[in-house]
């Protein structure tokens, strides 16, 4: 039963991922991508990896997708099929994709994956402790770096928004 569910989820994810890159309508690509991301979240939940699944849902399916939807709405001629690209560029794109796929396959082939027991799901407590731990395998430095980055982004956004208002009042 678990296996059937896994194949359904994995199949949906793969088909949606293929459709994402093959559809001619950019807005539909966004929707297919959403389905692919939801499928991955489903696989996490099936592995009893609840926290990761919820993060996948809220960060990718929630946050990134909403951002993408807004970005795509701002592009030109959203509803129309996109233009065909010149054959030379397509060849370059194809080669890049093949190379990257080779790299990914090589990494997956070489890496020594180990099966973990299914009975110890990561708790939120463990995640929180690891996030603030400064010992070995602790994440306090990346955590702080990200907070500084986010602060910089917020200040940048406020500055950009403010300067526009001042220009408008000057005129």
């Amino acid at each position: 039963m678990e296996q059937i569910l896994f194949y359904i989820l994995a199949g949906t994810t793969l088909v949606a991922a293929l459709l994402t890159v093959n559809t001619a309508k950019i807005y539909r690509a966004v929707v297919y991508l959403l389905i692919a991301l939801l499928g991955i979240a489903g696989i996490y939940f099936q592995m009893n990896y609840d926290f990761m699944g919820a993060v996948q849902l809220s960060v990718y399916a929630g946050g990134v997708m909403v951002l993408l939807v807004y970005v795509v709405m701002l592009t030109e001629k959203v509803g129309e099929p996109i233009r065909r690209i010149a054959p030379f560029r397509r060849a370059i794109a194809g080669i890049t994709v093949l190379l990257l796929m080779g790299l990914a396959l090589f990494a997956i082939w070489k890496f020594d994956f180990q099966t973990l027991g299914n009975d110890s799901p990561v708790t939120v407590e463990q995640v929180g402790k690891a996030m603030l731990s400064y010992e070995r395998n602790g994440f306090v430095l990346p955590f702080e770096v990200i907070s500084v980055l986010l602060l910089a982004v917020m200040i940048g956004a406020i500055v950009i928004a403010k300067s526009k208002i001042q220009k408008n009042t000057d005129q």
Partner: protein
Amino acid sequence: MMNMLSINIFQTWLEQTHGIWYVLVLAGIAAIYLGFFAVAGLMLVYLERRVAGYFQLRLGPNRVGPWGLLQTIADALKLVSKEIFVPKMADKLLYKAGYYIVIIAALLALAVIPFARQIQALDFNVGLFFISAVSSVGVLGILIGAWGSRNKYSLIGAMRSGLQMISYELSAGFAIIAVVLMSGTLKMTGIVEAQKHTWFLFQGHLPAIIAFMIFLISGTAETNRVPFDLVEGESELGAGFHTEYSGMGFAFFFLAEFINMFIIAALGATLFLGGWLAPFGITDGLPAQWLWGIIWFLLKVFVLIFLLMWFRWTFPRIRIDQLLTLEWKYLLPIGLVNTVIMAWMVWKDWLIHLG
């Protein structure tokens, strides 16, 4: 091992069955939730109209069935018999995907809510986080559906909806964090059990009450209800994001809106009002505990729903700049400070523990 403590009846059903029965039981549980979805949605629409009548000194629906109880069923039948009209230029796939995504998101959130001890489809360790994650997927349904209908009013309504939900999710998140600080767990059953002696609304003095108020305000905004219904401002946008939907397409969005209201109220009841626990444990020794649990839970949810409906028929719709000011200049800073105070209180153990 943590999961062993919280075996609920749905999980036991699933564990005792194999093969084809497993699928049937799974489908049965899904059918129960879908049934609840439909019945609760219809009842809430009826309730809304009666409450509206009450606030406007009239009776509301009272002709079909006893006290007009069958009115919404008649309405639903009418909607089913209506033609489903799809605009010519619409992207049919996205147009249809819209309401399915909204409904699935609402159903997923419903699955984590504990109705009584053991009566809950899923008891994640991260239940609360799961609900907030799923509710952000619901926004996408509205955006996608509105885009699919290729109508500028739909699109403007959906853009407003997205803006509003993303903004207010932040302060709802802070209100929820205040509760998580007190409970120390994200698990829904764990949160309810932690309120055994005192509800969180009273355990955390003033900060908890502030968090509750922020939660109700942002909950109203997230469900796109008055006074935050700019999404479907009739005077400006036709009907907002569901302008192009007719018949059942419209009904699905409408039902999902009411179920989302139920989810917000149920979340409020679980987080702040002790979920299925009886006040002062007055029904604790009685038989059929699960029934009492459901009764108390639904009673608390009803009170909160009444409050939300009261908002709707009392406040006028606010402007978009007022909406953003309220969130970014008032609710969010208050929520941030409130969370810090709450953390301090939990650290110093200043919470109120009765009994």
